[in-house]
């Protein structure tokens, strides 16, 4: 079937021109941007998975949950206290025996691999209380 462009009505012509404009000015850039972003995303995801493997973490990160966090941290440390605050902040107090300081450091190192959180100001506070170190920090969800 051969259709000449000139045989179309004005509205049809305008619609066809509009289709091309939408295709080349909006759809194609969107598709290109999507695949660029997809590559970028997969690359970052791969990097994180490599770190996970290095630390022996099999599960991917999840949204921060107080109960899950507490149950996970209590298996490592004697006392864990979580106080949730506004704007996705959680104040954490963990009692760390002095011989478990390395475990605590690894715990901090892998925190972002388990939960979508960051440590506020990248700051840890320690205070010795009855021969036990009380570590305090604030987690911020993202």
């Amino acid at each position, binding site marked *: 079937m051969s259709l000449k462009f000139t045989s179309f009505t004005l509205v049809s012509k305008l619609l066809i021109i509009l289709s091309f404009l939408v295709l080349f000015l909006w759809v194609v850039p*969107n598709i290109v941007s999507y695949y660029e972003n997809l590559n970028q995303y997969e690359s970052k995801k791969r990097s994180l998975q490599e770190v996970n493997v290095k630390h022996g973490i099999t599960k991917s990160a999840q949204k921060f949950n107080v109960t899950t966090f507490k149950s996970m941290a209590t298996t490592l440390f004697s006392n864990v206290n979580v106080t949730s605050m506004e704007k996705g902040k959680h104040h954490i107090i963990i009692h760390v025996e002095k011989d478990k300081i390395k475990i605590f450091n690894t715990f901090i190192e892998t925190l972002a691999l388990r939960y979508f959180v960051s440590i506020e100001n*990248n700051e840890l506070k320690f205070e010795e209380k009855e021969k036990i170190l009380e570590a305090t920090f604030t987690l911020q969800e993202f």
Partner: protein
Amino acid sequence: MRNQQQYVTITHYKEREFYFLNHAIQTHDGFISKEMEQFHESEKEKFIERIRQLQSEHPYTQIASISLATNQTVTEEEDTNRVSAKIFNNNYVIQEKMDIGNIPTTLYFSPFAILYEEYRKKLDSKLTLIIGLFDRKLYMMFATEDKIHQSWVIGTRGLTEKQIADRVYKSMKAYYKISYKFADHIEMLVTDDSPKLLKVLREELSLSILPTQNSIHNLLHHMSGTPSRATSSYIRSSLATTQHSSPHQSIKNNLVDTNDFISAQNDTMDNLEDIKLNESTFTGTSLSFMDKMKLLFSNKKSQRGASGKQFLSLVPLLFIVAIGAYYSMQNSKLLGDIIVTESQSYSQTNNTLLAMNSNDIFSAMGKNAELKNAIISNSKVELKGVVWGIEPLRNTLNELYSDGEFIIKPLENFMTEFSFKSKV
């Protein structure tokens, strides 16, 4: 007055994709116009049927229409090989061809003839520019009481009111260039219901312009209202008379007493039907974009049918928009995921550095000291504790943080307190 005794003028014209139909009862005091009817070009048969119906209802009728072609010119000599209408004794409107198809028409008028009829009583020795705006085309003629000096047709399709006024002004300047004369005054007849145009024309043109407004139907009813007016200026098909020798049948009419008035049916068949098609010369026959969009959403079945094809052109656009919307949504979602992954990666790096700092400090303490309070971050370190091996601790901390401030303070219990501050 009964139907049989009434003289009825039926008027019709085509503008864009629509036929407009009207009829009026002619009386001695003027005409009484009836309601206007509109038909889409896809309803042409219905439109013709309606004309036939009006003809059957009113035996004494004339069917008048207007030629809106742009290739009309006013000349001083009649051309027997073309369709023409006489205006003055020495002025004729000439048109190459005329297409009326099979639509019944007994009188066909040129906009120039209508303009002349409207303004002839105002013409005198002074030069008058007479302008008619018919179907978004400007029919212009410079005239005096004895002749038409110049005429031309200009399209105004898609122009604003101001631009139309500008066209009129430019036409006056153009005429000045060829004749070194300015029109003494301008008369303008606007057939569209456009008060804004009239206002703009009055404002934009400094010369005294007298715009009036009247519908094409009313003008045609007026033109065909009396035999003298109609016969003097309707477009005669010279081609028809030369090529066909069959005599026209005349009808007796109590109002129309002339052989030039021929019954609608006979005229259509014998007089105008043989005029060749010249559809391409009509400039204003396609719908505007807005009209077509209205038509797309119109409820009328026939109109929908005619515009249904346009939906086909809408399909690729809808398809493209759907693809675009899908990728746009996916992209937005992906960007959200990327932000989370980047935040996670950034947080992981910071946490690793923080854990390394913490590890270094606790290692530095070793068996030389014991921390009581500490703030460890990626930007600063503040330590306070009890020290036993001052020099080893100082050396180790200095190795880690070269610009740190190490202070010792003896305590009462023979122990030594240390404090250390540094930026990382």
